[in-house]
């Protein structure tokens, strides 16, 4: 019908615009990263010729000398550890909030919200001082702790939203059917909780992966410096050339996995960020 | 004029599902037409096509003589009452009712006047400045009606407007709706799955099944002369009883006895016989004269339900399991109504409505009488009713 095809065209245009909006900077980075060193400043959006030099330079020197490898490992390790710990702690809390009756529920949720809204800069100073005194400045722990603090509210909110949807009566039904409390929990509740936990884990991981303020304030060397901070200190081929190419290559290396991740788990992420309102 | 005509209207959804199949229906100006049928029969889809909320796949829809297939809802001059009322939660009752008029640019004083008139009719005046969230279900339903009335449209379209109300309120509102429609004389198309509503409200009732219109007619007509098994079993509560029968040698043999085969039954062979619960009686109560016609038989009573005003007796007869997909469609409805289950294979449960003074008792044999003048016969294959009503019927059709 006429009405139908006009709508189709309009929607297509709308979608293309949105796609372009989201992808242009990404494509630009990929484009720069593939340019040979002498063409980096040629102002072209699409590279004239393709070279992988920038990528090679990232990994030259192995784990000790490469400007990128150690930070990459740091990022992955810190994000993973934080995620595991945060999800564990948040799960307990979310279970309590979603399932049990006790005074202070609202307070915890409100408090978590307040913490999420904190400007990190307000804590950076004291942490800097404290960590140096405690000797955990420039260590994994020095970053994991503040990450935990700020990831917990996120995880708690997402998990509470998911846990509220679980029909807890099933646990009792399983027990009536003859399961022990532990079996009921393991075979009935856990599978139902798994998607929410997984979603929360993804969101926490992205949060840690992304942080810059703490990374740059609480580290001073490759010992625990993460990728975002390391990128800010990249040097180019010589002190006179900007490290544009290697930064772009590094950027692509840390971004492509995230894009793949987001692609695969889009439904979960959208559901988690909207606290379950949008189910995909 | 606001007559509505559906001319071979068909609706096929994107996934190929045919919700409405070549429906022909003429609704006269000022008529109260009911669309009734089990869920999934296409009645709501038909209504939404009239409203313009669903596209018409093929066929023509005419309102007031004009073809309106491609017109948007607002250009059709119709008003709709939704099942869940769809009241705007952020607007007061007054604003809800006046919304359409304000969109049309009617001036404020006029809007207020019309809204207040409608509010008075529906007894909503003291609620005009409240929000829907603060109203009871019945009040919300009236606001939804008020929203429609205020517009003085060519037709009202109502999609199960009473089904969200509790039983008592529903009965109350039913009379309200009937009174309103007769006062306003606006063409109304009303969708419901409840056959009682259909029978009590409509000038005419259209029974639908699986997208196909089964029969259209005044309630009495559907009751007395159902065109097929489905209509027969759908209209009337408790539903009509069905049992297998056979006509041979001019006689009709059914599990409870034998009678002269009615005129116009046509041919010999297997039939399905239908008889309504109200056409049974306790043989001891029925007078001798009446007993001369009809069948008196003995049955062992399975269950007795005493309602005070009536007595329902359940018994069963042998049958080789009457098969018909029309009956299959009805099964869900019947289980809801009779509530009895647990029939064994080869048995058919019969429900009889008796005078409350009857002395039948559970697990005892009783003498019952069936008024075979009120028997309906159906072709087992097509489900169509055979011939006219049985002989010795006194009522006009």
């Amino acid at each position: 019908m006429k009405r139908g095809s006009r709508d189709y065209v309009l929607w297509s245009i709308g979608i293309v615009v949105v796609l372009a909006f989201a992808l242009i900077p990404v494509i630009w980075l990929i484009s720069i990263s593939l340019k040979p060193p002498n063409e980096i400043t040629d102002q072209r959006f699409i590279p004239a010729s393709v070279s992988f030099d920038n990528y090679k330079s990232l990994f030259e020197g192995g784990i000790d000398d490469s400007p990128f490898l150690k930070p990459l490992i740091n990022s992955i390790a810190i994000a993973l550890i934080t995620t595991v710990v945060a999800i564990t702690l948040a799960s307990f809390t979310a279970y309590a909030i979603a399932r049990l009756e006790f005074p202070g529920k609202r307070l915890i949720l409100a408090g978590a919200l307040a913490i999420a809204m904190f400007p990190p800069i307000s804590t950076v100073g004291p942490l800097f001082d404290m960590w140096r005194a405690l000797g955990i400045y420039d260590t994994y722990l020095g970053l994991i702790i503040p990450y935990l603090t700020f990831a917990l509210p996120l995880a708690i909110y997402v998990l509470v939203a998911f846990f509220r949807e679980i029909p807890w009566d099933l646990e009792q039904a399983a027990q009536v059917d003859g399961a022990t409390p532990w079996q009921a929990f393991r075979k009935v509740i856990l599978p139902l909780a798994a998607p929410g936990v997984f979603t929360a884990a993804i969101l926490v991981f992205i949060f840690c992966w992304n942080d810059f303020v703490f990374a740059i304030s609480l580290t001073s060397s490759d010992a625990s410096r993460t990728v975002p901070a390391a990128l800010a200190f990249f040097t180019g081929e010589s002190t006179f050339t900007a490290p544009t190419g290697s930064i772009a290559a590094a950027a692509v290396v840390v971004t492509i996995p995230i894009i793949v991740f987001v692609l695969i788990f889009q439904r979960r992420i959208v559901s988690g960020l909207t606290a379950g309102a949008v189910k995909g | 004029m606001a007559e509505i005509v559906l001319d071979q209207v068909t609706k096929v959804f994107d996934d190929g599902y045919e919700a409405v199949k070549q429906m022909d229906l003429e609704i006269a100006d000022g008529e109260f037409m009911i669309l009734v049928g089990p869920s999934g029969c296409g009645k709501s889809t038909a209504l939404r096509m009239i409203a313009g909320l669903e596209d018409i796949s093929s066929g023509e829809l005419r309102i007031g003589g004009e073809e309106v297939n491609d017109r948007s809802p607002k250009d059709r001059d119709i008003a709709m009452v939704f099942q869940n009322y769809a009241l705007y939660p952020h607007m007061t009752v007054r604003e809800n009712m006046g919304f359409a008029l304000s969109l049309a640019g009617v001036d404020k004083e006029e809007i207020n006047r019309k809204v207040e008139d409608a509010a008075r009719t529906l007894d909503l005046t003291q609620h005009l400045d409240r929000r829907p969230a603060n109203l009871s279900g019945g009040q919300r339903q009236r606001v939804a009606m008020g929203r429609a009335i205020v517009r003085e449209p060519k037709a009202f379209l109502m999609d199960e407007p009473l089904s969200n109300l509790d039983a008592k309120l529903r009965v109350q509102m039913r009379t309200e709706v009937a009174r309103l429609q007769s006062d306003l004389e606006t063409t109304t198309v009303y969708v419901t799955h409840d056959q009682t509503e259909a029978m009590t409200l409509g000038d005419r009732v259209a029974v639908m099944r699986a997208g196909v219109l089964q029969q259209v007619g005044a309630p009495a007509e559907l009751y007395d002369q159902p065109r097929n098994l489905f209509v027969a079993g759908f209209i009337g509560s408790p539903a009509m009883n069905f049992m297998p029968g056979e006509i041979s040698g001019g006689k009709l043999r059914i599990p409870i006895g034998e009678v002269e085969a009615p005129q116009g039954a046509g041919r010999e062979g297997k039939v399905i016989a239908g008889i309504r619960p109200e056409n049974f009686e306790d043989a001891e109560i029925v007078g001798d004269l009446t007993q001369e016609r009809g069948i008196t038989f003995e049955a062992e009573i399975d269950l007795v339900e005493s309602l005070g005003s009536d007595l329902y007796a359940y018994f069963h007869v042998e049958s080789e399991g009457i098969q018909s997909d029309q009956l299959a469609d009805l099964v869900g409805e019947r289980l809801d109504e009779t509530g009895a289950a647990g029939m064994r294979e080869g048995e058919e449960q019969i429900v009889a409505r008796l005078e409350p003074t009857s002395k039948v008792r559970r697990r005892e044999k009783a003498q019952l009488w069936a008024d075979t003048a009120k028997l309906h016969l159906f072709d087992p294959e097509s489900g169509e009713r055979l011939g006219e009503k049985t002989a010795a019927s006194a009522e006009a059709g």
Partner: protein
Amino acid sequence: MEASTANTPTHASSRTRSERKLAWMLCAPAVIAMLAVTAYPIGYAFVLSVQKLDLRFPEQTGFVGLDNYGTVLGSELWWTDLFNTFLIMVISVAVELVLGMVIALVMHRAIFGRGTVRTVVLIPYGIITVVAAFAWQFAFASDSGFVNNLIGSEMDWFGGHVSSLVVIILAEIWKTTPFMALLLLAGLVTIDEGLYEAAKVDGASAWQRFWKITLPLMKPAILVAVLFRTLEAFRVFDSIFIMTRGAQNTESVSILGFNQLINRLNLGVGSAISVLAFLIVVGIAFLFVKGLGARLDEGRPGG
């Protein structure tokens, strides 16, 4: 909402008591972890802020009352940076609100390609802010970026105050509009479809339906989304650091704090800035909740 405990009898049954105990035990680790790095440091920041504490001159440490605050509030740099921060905050949130609304509608209503849009729209969310900042910086680099090539200009974007701010704001908008769109989408999906049908029958055009039905019903979601994004925008740091390090007068409050604390090691003044930042954030939140009635019951944490 959760049942309040106002109804529990004064002698709570032992079942309730053990339930409560269990609940507190379960929550304790997370609560402690959260408080440890927020309540304590904030308190500590207060303490630091009233001292003269410059780690480069540790021997001069001492209590100086509100002197640091005086220094900060009397400094022109503070007010410039505060203004920058507010400028960036207001403009980005305003633009994001409009763009986010459009994208949310596309995600909600698209006849096809909904999954694709939702996926692609999450990419800015998943990309590291620093990475995005670099991308924008390279794009607008006056002699090597594609933007100047595209629009045929030789403007030195990072050489001037306003042009730098333009790029910074652009980068912020790009990065966070998707999140705003998702928050708005969450509000959109709660609107009963039947209302739109009723409005169609009442004669409302698509535009009218948006203004009279969608927007009013989305007010709570919009308020929460704007509140969250405003508080986040106040913290702007990464983009500015990468693109200009704060040059051309583009510093924000966070950059200022960072410079004082980490670069200059002046913990006293830096902490005063931290505390002031904290108070401003609290003030904004207060304004939204009390003044505009933002309801945080179903609120969402920052991204």
